[in-house]
């Protein structure tokens, strides 16, 4: 498997480690999160396998090209439009979550507009890059940031003040029935492969996932998911964590670097995850804007010889995210994300796999020679 495919999947997994995912999982900790996690590992990996192998039939093509050439127009256009909104919404909720984190923990006195604007400026630069450059950016940031994150986590696992008993209490909840909310929330973070809808343009020779690649991916996913859920328990306690809005920030704040340059590790930690979140949002909005422009492209909306369609969409993104960041409460944000995970995510994945399947049939009937 291509290493960029790994970055694509892993970065989106890691981004949600500190944002909304742990909160939802821990909220349901007494109602069967543990069995849901194991189901989510299986489901996440199966869906990843299906998506990658479906896309491997269309090397070098994004979803817009695939759908436009192999399915009727009345089917392709609404699907692409819905997908662009879905990806925009995912990016937006990531953006707002991180804006809230910055506003609460790093810069409590700074205006929320400034925070959102700083984010959006950098991301806007990112989404106009070519798909290839985004991959290179993701590789660089991934390699810089991962050592920090691993360092903090290893330090946490070996901390004297990590109480394993709390983690074991959490594991002992395994005898409950799995619940749907935890399951979809946990599955969501494995959905990085869905980003292939645009990023498949880069993969000219995408193959079906190999056994080695899939088992590595399963290993990483299990580690990330289990750490996301269990490590905060060891620091925050089992009964006492359900009212924490950002369990991972609380956890990283509980780790002390005795002889470090700064004792409070949380700043390094938030910084590292901010970098990852910028990459994730860039990817998601890049997808969104590309999908959107495949549906609506105003050929005559020009200034001199530069087409203004994309900048116009970017401007809409700005306006909407600033408006949303100002008005949304953190509760509404969480409910929104939960609703997304529970309802929109399964629909989106079904639509994606379904349309790819249709497109494959369309392709087979168009040129029967390639059918094997």
């Amino acid at each position: 498997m291509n290493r960029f495919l790994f970055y694509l999947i892993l970065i989106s997994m890691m981004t949600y480690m500190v944002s909304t995912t742990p909160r939802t999982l821990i909220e349901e900790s007494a109602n069967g999160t543990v069995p849901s996690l194991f189901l989510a590992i299986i489901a996440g990996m199966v869906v990843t396998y299906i998506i990658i192998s479906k896309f491997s039939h269309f090397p070098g093509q994004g979803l817009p090209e695939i759908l436009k050439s192999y399915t009727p127009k009345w089917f392709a256009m609404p699907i692409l439009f819905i997908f662009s909104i879905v990806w925009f919404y995912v990016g937006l909720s990531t953006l707002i979550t991180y804006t809230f984190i910055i506003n609460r923990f790093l810069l409590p006195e700074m205006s929320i507009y400034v925070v959102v604007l700083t984010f959006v400026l950098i991301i806007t630069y990112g989404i106009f890059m070519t798909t290839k450059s985004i991959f290179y950016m993701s590789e660089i940031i991934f390699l810089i940031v991962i050592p920090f994150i691993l360092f903090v986590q290893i330090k946490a696992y070996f901390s004297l003040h990590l109480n394993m008993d709390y983690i074991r209490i959490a594991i002992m909840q395994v005898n409950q029935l799995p619940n749907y909310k935890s399951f979809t929330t946990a599955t969501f973070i494995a959905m990085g492969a869905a980003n292939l809808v645009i990023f498949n343009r880069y993969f000219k020779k995408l193959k079906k996932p190999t056994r080695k690649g899939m088992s590595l991916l399963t290993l990483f996913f299990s580690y990330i998911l289990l750490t996301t859920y269990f490590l905060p328990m060891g620091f925050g306690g089992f009964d006492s964590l359900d009212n924490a809005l950002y369990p991972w920030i609380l956890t990283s704040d509980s780790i002390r670097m005795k002889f470090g340059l700064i004792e409070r590790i949380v700043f390094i930690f938030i910084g590292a995850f901010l970098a990852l979140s910028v990459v994730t949002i860039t990817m998601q909005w890049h997808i969104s804007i590309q999908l959107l422009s495949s549906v609506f492209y105003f050929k005559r909306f020009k200034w001199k010889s530069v087409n203004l369609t994309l900048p116009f969409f970017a401007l809409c993104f700005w306006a909407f995210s600033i408006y949303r960041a100002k008005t949304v409460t953190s509760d509404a944000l969480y409910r929104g994300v939960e609703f997304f995970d529970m309802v929109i995510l399964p629909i989106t994945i079904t639509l994606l796999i379904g349309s790819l399947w249709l497109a494959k049939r369309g392709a087979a009937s168009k040129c029967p020679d390639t059918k094997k």
Partner: protein
Amino acid sequence: MSRYKKMIKRSLILILLLPLLTQAGCAFKDIDKRVFVVGIGIDPSEKVRHGFKVTLKMIKPVGDVKSVPSQTYAYLTHESESVAEAIRMLETRVDKVLDLGHNRIILLNEKLLSKDIDTFMDFFTRRGDIQMITYMAVAGTTAEETISFEPETETPASIALYNFFDNTGTESPYVLTTFLFEFRRQVLSKGVNAILPIIDINEDKTAFIINNAIVLKLEEKPVKLSEVETKYFNSLLYNASGFSYKIEKEDLIMVLNIDTVKMKYKIVLDEGPPRIDMKVTKYGVIGESNKRLDISNLKKYDKTAAEEMKKKVIELLTKLQENDIDPFGFGLRYRATRLSREGLMDEWDRIYPEIEFNVTMDVNLKSTGAVE
């Protein structure tokens, strides 16, 4: 076309560089406009009913530490109905921003411990900028007096109380360290009682004495541990080094220096009456003796020491049991080793007062020190 692209790129880079201008300073407020709180003390209020008296220890920023002749601390006190309100009122008395992000110690008055802890601790965990690795302690007299006490060994720009607890300065098994996150999880969890160190001031008003601890009981009078009990507790649970022990046998008096302590325990229910099997292993050397020692007799000394120390551990465990407090978290272990079900904690509450302790003590002396 390419010219315009270049232009757009250049202007985008310029826009990206603009936010750098906002980075000059600490979130728009410079360091000379801030005053750093380095200690918070909370007492029950004398004037306001059910209120609190909050004392802040602040450090004034100075240009050069060497040129400062004496201490540069300032103290402020305010009484109010809640902690947040008191701190808000204190802000009106300082010309600078109160920065709580560097605070590392919160002192509580002993009288507050039998009240509802949530009424005043909530403020500290709700605010994002207060460190979770803040030390928690109980004042021997009042929190106000203790926080504003400056011992003779305190030098400018170093805060004596931090050095006690952070294990980079003095390291002693008598000094128990409890972080805010530990305190929070212990107070809110079922099956464990929170334990805090007590800070006393000696009679001459020259130094701190920190060698006791206090165990909280939910809305009841807390239980104090003696020096020896604190030492044993701390070395058993946190493997505190620097543990020394005096043995007197016949006319031989010797002091052992223990540097590693390992403790494991298991709750056994199915063999006869319920009991806790605790296995303690200690490694150390002989530190002082009134006689010439024979190095071949080390095994004998091991045994004598083990017997004596075993008695002390059982005494400590029995005292905790008699007072119905559980700072070790045996209750947590009980929950952690059984599948979750209703009423698990009620079962434990019935078992704990009758449980027996079976302590196995292993002492391994490595040498007689530098001389025989």
